[in-house]
């Protein structure tokens, strides 16, 4: 077996040193009823590299990759071009095969990169501090609600109807067990983001821990959150802003600038591929005064015994391995390698590159929106938008998406899939347009959509 260095001679010599007659002697503590003899039936035996590659490549071929089709899917995961150097650098063994930096003297590479990541994320989201990443945007969103509960000592959170339905579902799952009360809603195709904000403001009361609002929202709408932030603060509540498309922040004012107290985000669209939904990287940032209530790992600056600058994991008294049942969260890991990819991609872009990338995304999207809204009986319902907008079709969108996919066009995400059973939303189609989309792709989508509707 190519991954196992010990040879039979080694094994015999090692057993002799141990004083054991056979390998079975090392498993004597296993109760006899649970000793499993021989390899498990129904599973294949070991296989050469070439055979494994052939089998898995066969499965990969049964999927329609984004790059093989005119591609317009978003709704929380976005396809951007990732420079080749990003993947090269994260595959360096010193990053790929290292552990959580518990021995900082020999983990400065990871720790400095996390410190840089934290600074980039804090600046991008417009906050004082950020942590070293979370599992993904949906779990970061839930952790923000828990943090708001700890800070305000209130247990009622109001979730915007524009929040990604999977994020709402995650929060509902968790709240069922923690006892948090959640007021949730669904988006309205006939409403504006401003109307939703007005609804949220009217719902805030003295029991509200936080309002959770996504910007751009699930329909692609962008809003100014400043008034909502003021309304939250006037009632002693916090504003939690969720960002699922961080490239938007190259163009749009950050949630922190608009007054958000906690920003939770999905970082996938910078540096991390689509990966069928994971691994991704959760972003989490807040105000300096709340840092001790923040979940997740933190890298901090310090000095070594010789006075040199260095970095360590810090404020671990919040964490489970020290606090056990009193920890701020049970989280043990972060999404280190994805955070590194995010950070490298953002370093390659720099501020000028990010701004240009965001402008290109927006301009492409405007072109696509105008083209598609010109189709008969198709109406665009979200404005303003960044790189994603919603169309209202004259018939349910889910079969339309399937019909377009059958002819090789991945034409958007149907609200029918995201909101099963919500008949008011079943005609909605969410279309995302990034810099990877060509004019030919837009024409192909217009043709496919027109044909599917006819």
């Amino acid at each position, binding site marked *: 077996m190519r991954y196992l260095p010990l040879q039979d001679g080694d094994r015999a010599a090692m057993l002799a040193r141990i004083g054991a007659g056979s390998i079975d002697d090392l498993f004597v503590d296993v109760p006899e009823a649970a000793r499993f003899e021989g390899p498990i039936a129904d599973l294949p035996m070991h296989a050469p590299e070439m055979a494994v590659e052939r089998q898995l490549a066969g499965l990969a071929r049964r999927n*329609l990759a984004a790059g093989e089709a005119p591609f317009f899917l978003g709704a929380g995961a976005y396809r951007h071009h990732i420079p080749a150097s990003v993947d090269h650098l994260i595959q360096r063994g010193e990053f790929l095969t290292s552990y959580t930096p518990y021995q900082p003297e020999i983990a400065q590479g990871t720790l400095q990169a996390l*410190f840089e990541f934290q600074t980039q994320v804090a600046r991008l989201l417009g906050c004082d501090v950020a942590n070293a990443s979370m599992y993904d945007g949906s779990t970061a969103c839930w952790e923000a609600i828990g943090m708001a509960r700890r800070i305000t000592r209130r247990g009622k959170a109001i979730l915007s109807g524009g929040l990604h339905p999977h994020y709402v579902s995650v929060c509902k799952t968790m709240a069922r067990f923690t006892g948090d009360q959640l007021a949730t809603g669904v988006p309205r195709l006939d409403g504006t983001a401003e109307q939703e904000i007005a609804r949220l403001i009217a719902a805030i009361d003295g029991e509200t821990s936080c309002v959770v609002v996504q910007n751009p929202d699930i329909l692609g709408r962008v809003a100014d959150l400043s008034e909502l932030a003021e309304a939250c603060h006037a009632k002693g509540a916090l504003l939690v802003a969720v960002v699922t498309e961080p490239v938007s922040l190259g163009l749009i*004012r950050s949630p922190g600038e608009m007054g958000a107290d906690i920003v939770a985000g999905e970082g996938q669209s910078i540096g991390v591929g689509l990966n069928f939904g994971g*691994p991704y990287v959760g972003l989490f940032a807040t105000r300096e005064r709340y840092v001790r209530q923040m979940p997740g790992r933190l890298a901090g600056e310090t000095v070594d015994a010789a006075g040199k600058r260095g970095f360590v994991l810090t404020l671990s008294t919040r964490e489970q391995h020290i606090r056990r049942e009193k920890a701020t969260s049970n989280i043990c890991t972060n999404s280190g390698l994805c955070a590194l990819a995010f950070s490298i991609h953002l370093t*390659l872009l720099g501020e000028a590159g990010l701004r240009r990338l965001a402008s290109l995304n927006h301009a492409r999207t405007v072109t696509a929106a105008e083209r598609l809204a010109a189709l008969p009986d198709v109406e665009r319902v979200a404005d303003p938008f960044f790189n994603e907008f919603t169309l209202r079709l004259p018939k349910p969108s889910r079969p339309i998406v399937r019909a377009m996919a059958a002819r090789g066009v991945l034409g958007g995400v149907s609200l029918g899939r995201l909101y099963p059973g919500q008949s008011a939303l079943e005609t909605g189609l969410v279309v995302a347009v990034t810099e990877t989309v060509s004019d030919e792709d837009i024409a192909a989508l217009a043709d496919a959509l027109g044909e599917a509707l006819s």
Partner: protein
Amino acid sequence: MSINASGWKPNIGDGQGDHERPSFTGNRALMLEEPLIFEIGDTERTGVDLADAPAANAVDRLGALLRSAPIGLPGLTEPETVRHYTRLSRQNYAIDLGLFPLGSCTMKHNPRLNEKMARLPGFADLHPLTPIEQCQGALALIHLVGEWLKALTNMPAIAMSPKAGAHGELCGLLAIRAAHEARERAGGAARRTVLVPESAHGTNPATAAFCGYAVESIPATGDGRVDLAALKAKLGPDIAAVMITNPNTCGLFERDMIAIADAVHAAGAYLYCDGANFNAIVGRVRPGDLGIDAMHINLHKTFSTPHGGGGPGAGPVVFSQALAPFAPLPFVEKQGDRFVLVEEETAQAEHHGDAFGRMVAFHGQMGMFVRAAAYMLSHGADGLRQVAEDAVLAANYVLRSLEDVLEAPFAASGPCMHEALFSDEGLADGFSTLDIAKALIDEGFHPMTMYFPLVVHGAMLIEPTETESRATLDQFIGALRSVAERGKAGDPTLQQAPIHAPRRRLDETLAARKPVLVWREQPDAAVAAE
């Protein structure tokens, strides 16, 4: 705009130790200091050539939503970026460089075939909301990994979506709580307490508390195992679950596991098993045969997906028949030749009324499933059994090669499993486990897990894994023997270690007392440079 006009100069320290020669750069040959991106980049510089920016009026419709203030994000060109991160990488220890014996972490070789497979466009460039007919291969892969894990554990059901071990624990406990709530609806009494052994990982009590349970500790016996009599005395109508790690964090198999399961079930509670140490028994013991109800499996441990400097991991959870109806959404089902993704709550209501909702957006750590699949298929059922045997053999080899020089508190009770546990007993006054660990760094090894489990004073927990040669094990044993002898003799140079690493011991107290969590330009430095 330059973010740091001053340029950064490393402080080369006070010259103590082994490198008192003057240095202009602070570098020492291949050991290269590297400033922060904020100190070398600037906001106009970029390493990405994009199409020309669109006309300014293209963004008109965003109006007052447009950013006006600078963000402060430095950019670097590609050569500068590659050099920055390559230099940083060289300040890390890694499995690719040497033995990484962190107990309970299973730092084994990460096969590169896994990486290649995870990057196939059909997996890596696949959107999670791709229509079901266009992602049949991805669903088949998730199903394949699930079937392997069920077969290896002899458990009937699995939830694939949890993102990490601790997230899997949460999933298991939530299913247990949902099962109890269903019983309560049928007239059962509420159960409020979870029992956790003293030696458990910190995530266990943290998870139980998150799920709303009180946590009580179970004492250990003198030979490092759960005290069955004490456990039985604590079991009662208020106990919802017992969380046991097996093999446990002392590196020992819980001999009474079947008796524990029987007692737990007789008391109406569920048995959660922390599967962090599955590597020791994979292919030789199926946890379902021990009577457990739920167990998470760290794909980044037993199934070799890379740790990546702290994630991403993956923590699928297997369930017994009793808990299977309570597994979370979404899940993959095979219907004839076709795979379907059960994700909508309405579909759930039809067939799976007890399932609780989502734990994550989308479907879990697909990239990790592909890597784990490559690993499983490569090893096969026979190779995985050999993995467990070689891992246990290597740990016992370390244990028996060092028990004469380091105190091994449970060595007399028999063999260990995949990790060897020592204590700090016998070190000279003023010398600690920390000194031993830091001295190992100077010997070119990553230290063992220190001060865990908490039940042993100054614990040193060593997990060599099956992917080390005998020559490497012998060198590690020799190095640890030498360091331990110096610690017992009170060699003061040990307390200076490490002296050859990129940094000396770091001041963690300072870091926590005055947290500096983001870079801010030092106004003094900018002035001084002019």
